[in-house]
């Protein structure tokens, strides 16, 4: 299964990201979205799966002082 994830950053100015990943996002995971890293705080199904694709939404929060 390929997980197409829409990452939305809560607070701040980061516009979020969309990426395909091999493992489903989980609450507490740290993800690098471009130049910064974020912590996942919520995961929801965005659309029903189609073919080998699963469509997820992940809310993220900024990790203060740990920009990468």
């Amino acid at each position, binding site marked *: 299964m*390929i997980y197409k994830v829409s990452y939305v950053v809560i607070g701040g100015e980061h516009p979020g990201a969309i990426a*395909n990943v091999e493992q489903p996002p989980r609450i507490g995971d740290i993800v690098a979205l471009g130049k910064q890293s974020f912590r996942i705080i919520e995961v929801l199904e965005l*659309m029903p799966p189609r073919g080998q694709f699963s469509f997820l939404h992940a809310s993220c929060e900024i990790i203060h002082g740990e920009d990468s």
Partner: protein
Amino acid sequence: MDLTDLLRNVEMFTGLTEPQLQKLSTIFELKEYHQNEVLFTQGEQGAHLYLVKKGFVEVIVNDPDTSSGRTIVNLGPGQSVGEMALVDQGVRSATVRAAIDGTVVASASRDAFNDLCEKDTATGYRIMRNIAADLSFRIRRRRFD
């Protein structure tokens, strides 16, 4: 990961057979970009489709009031940009640039892409249906913005 592996992991090409994917891979070329290097600019004519293989690209929309750009989303591995130009042949609706060094992007020309889809209508139908589904995904994600 070769080009066929990349295409297999792109939603736009889901449902295609291995021979279809291999034929499709012949029209794509890979290029590595430095941070802030521009793939294309808002307002120019679009003639290529792009697929992110590695890294992230920033999608930037210009604000006509301030003449400055605002990043509306970052697109990572497996994501496509520029497909609207394949469908409507209009100008680029945003500027896209590499967000980080070492971003690798595959591109195909609209002419080569359309030629392949018209010669192999089963491939063309599947791809256009998948493009519609991707647009649906992008619309649905907006309710979380």
